[in-house]
């Protein structure tokens, strides 16, 4: 009995002591990499930052005034997909217990908003590398003094993501017009039944007629559907020439697979997060050939650093980088700002971060006044990639605003679509 009580008391003291904080010394720069580490998004965060930290440390570290300090990464598992409270606890622990100097990462907007508040309270620089919602940067504009420590490095904000989505659709429509003579294509809007896709569906319904396209119908399969053949048959019956997709979940795989198997005579274009991953080809058994999706990275020369980054990442981690691997650029940007500032003082580093002109893997990174990554020609544009015979190749920008990245190829209309309309 007494032994049991003693053990319980000892365990409780251990709990408290372990929470009481450690972290010492200013002989290194601690960077907290925050993300859902059990998921591919968190892996991307960690991998990108690891690669950058290794490069920086191999060169001797970061020049801070007269000292050279190495980077030490701290893995902060936010578990944010499952538990927002957990994410905020992880953030507080990273700052107060692990004593990180800077933070980067984050994915789920609700969690990032709560974590952002904590980071700002401690005046810690937090470089966003996952959440796309404009509100995160709108806070900087509304209350600069409080939120100036926040910057978004990747992805471009969701307003611009939608713009790129429609630019991809426009490219495919033009191709259908020039190569197949379909001047007013019918578009089937197929979006997973999820909140993020709702505004895209609404905007599409409003704007497609203005863009000279006809709406064949709207289909909203479950994000985790394993069979979408009914929707695809309906799309075919509606006479659609193009399928405008919005998939972030696993439904992107059965959709692409069945689309290829049934040879639905409509080109698929839009967002299909599963198609951004290397495993897509194997998962669809090659049937996802010709799927076109918006993307962040491909092996094209968006800047001088894109291809070296892409190749090194793929060699090291055996997969292509997803957009959360933008922590690679985030860490290099941070280090440059620290070296220019000559100090780890957050306020001074913020001033230098605001002057950033960095040629990153996804384009030139310049921050807007509200600390958002700038989108547009000459900056980060995002890209469109199409699966062509086992390779995910960049097909957009195809001359949009005069931009065509070296290594980009032409978009290909799926052969069965071409054959169907050439009859």
């Amino acid at each position, binding site marked *: 009995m007494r032994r049991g009580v003693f053990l319980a008391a000892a365990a409780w003291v251990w709990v408290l002591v372990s929470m009481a904080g450690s972290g010492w010394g200013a002989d290194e720069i601690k960077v907290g990499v925050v993300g859902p580490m059990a998921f591919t998004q968190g892996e991307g965060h960690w991998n990108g930052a690891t690669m950058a930290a290794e490069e920086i440390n191999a060169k001797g570290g970061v020049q801070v005034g007269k000292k050279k300090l190495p980077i030490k990464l701290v893995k902060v598992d936010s578990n944010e997909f499952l538990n*927002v409270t957990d994410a905020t606890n992880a953030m507080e*622990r990273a700052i*107060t217990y692990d004593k990180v100097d800077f933070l980067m990462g984050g994915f789920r907007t609700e969690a990032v*908003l709560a974590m952002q508040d904590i980071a700002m309270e401690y005046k810690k620089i937090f470089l966003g590398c996952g959440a796309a919602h404009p509100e995160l940067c709108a806070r900087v504009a509304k209350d600069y003094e409080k939120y100036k420590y926040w910057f978004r490095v990747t992805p471009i904000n969701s307003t611009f993501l939608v713009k790129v989505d429609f630019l991809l659709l426009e490219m495919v429509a033009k191709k259908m017009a020039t190569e197949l003579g379909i001047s007013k294509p019918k578009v089937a809007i197929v979006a997973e039944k999820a909140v993020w896709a709702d505004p895209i569906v609404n905007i599409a319904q409003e704007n497609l007629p203005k863009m000279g396209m006809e709406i064949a119908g709207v289909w909203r399969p479950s994000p985790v559907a394993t069979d979408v053949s009914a929707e695809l048959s309906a799309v075919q019956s509606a006479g659609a020439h193009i399928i405008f997709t919005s998939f972030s979940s696993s439904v992107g795989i059965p959709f692409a697979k069945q689309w290829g198997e049934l040879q639905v005579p409509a080109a698929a274009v839009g967002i299909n997060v599963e198609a951004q991953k290397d495993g897509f080809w194997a998962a669809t058994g090659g049937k996802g050939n010709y799927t076109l999706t918006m993307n962040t990275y491909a092996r094209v020369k968006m800047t001088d650093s894109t291809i070296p980054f892409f190749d090194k990442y793929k060699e090291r981690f055996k997969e292509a980088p997803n957009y959360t691997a933008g922590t690679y650029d985030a860490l290099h940007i941070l280090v440059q700002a620290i070296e220019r500032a000559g100090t780890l003082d957050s306020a001074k580093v913020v001033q230098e971060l605001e002057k950033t002109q960095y040629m990153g893997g996804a384009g030139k990174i310049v921050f807007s006044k509200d600390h958002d990554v700038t989108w547009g020609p000459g900056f980060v544009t995002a890209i469109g990639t199409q699966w062509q015979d086992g390779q995910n190749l960049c097909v957009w920008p195809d001359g949009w605003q005069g931009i065509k990245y070296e290594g980009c190829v032409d978009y290909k209309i799926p052969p069965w679509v071409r054959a169907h309309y050439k009859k």
Partner: protein
Amino acid sequence: MLLAQLRRIQVVIKTEVLVLPSRIAVMLFALFLLTVPFYWPDPYLLRILTLASIFAIFAASWDLLSGFTGQVNFGHALFFGVAAYCAALLNLHLKFPPWVTVPLGAVAAVGTGLLVGIPCLRLKGTYLALTTLSFPIILMGLVFAFPDLTGGELGVSGLSRLAGSRVGEYYVCSVLMLGAGFLMWKIGDSKTGIIFHAIREDELAVRTAGINTTKYKILAFCLSGFFAGVAGGLYAHVMRIAGPSTLEVSLSFQAVIWAVFGGMVSIYGPMAAVFILFPLLELLRVVPQLRNLAFALIILLILLYMPEGLIPWIRDRIEKLCPRCKARNFTRRSHCRICAAHMH
């Protein structure tokens, strides 16, 4: 006057608290909570204890409804979420301070308790559990259907802090937790609590005795909703955001896990469970890959060997009932502290 009051407190502590190890443990725990910022003002520790206090109220409120009255609620996050959103919207749009929004949020949760309680009156067991499960899911749908008001997937953010500092927030939450816990325990121990017990055991018999069980079941929904609502309002101001996660099914099930782990029909069992499991989950961050697995294993093992819950298991080993008057006594006593009957 003051001296007389102090003497009275001293007598109560001596005759009512120091006579039972479980009460001594509760007193020491309360003392620990009230003094910890003086000798351990670590912000991370205070955050964990603040959130544990909030969830302790939430878990105990589930026990009040489902443990005592037997109205198994699998959608308890509804009360939490309604109060969180209500407090958040009042704070953000009408600039009401937290000391106004938290009670109003709790009142909104009471209203929700009525709304849910009335249609659920005819249901029992599995049917009631599944019906209650659906309510937060329906509300989640409404949250996404009216994003201009509710913030959609972002939730309502940018709320005022509960207090000016972390220590202030900690004291508001821990004192409210101690107060709410004591109140719920007293309710469970009162005449109303006995009727709640009886409804759980045999509702027909209670009705045969001329008691309006409908009234008491609605009362249980409202009381439970009120305390869960207090927790929800506090949570919104501590996190400074009220989002869809406050309505998630996983939060509802967390309340069930806490209550079952700590021991149902006790109020202090679920509260103790939160103060064990919530810091434990933080502690397990040292093994990130195994964190959730280890956590689940610990819960499973406890429930396997202590099916009545951890706290009743411990209590039964340090205290026993008097064979004559059924009062609780320390196991080492040879005679009952109340009726002096022989204990062995």
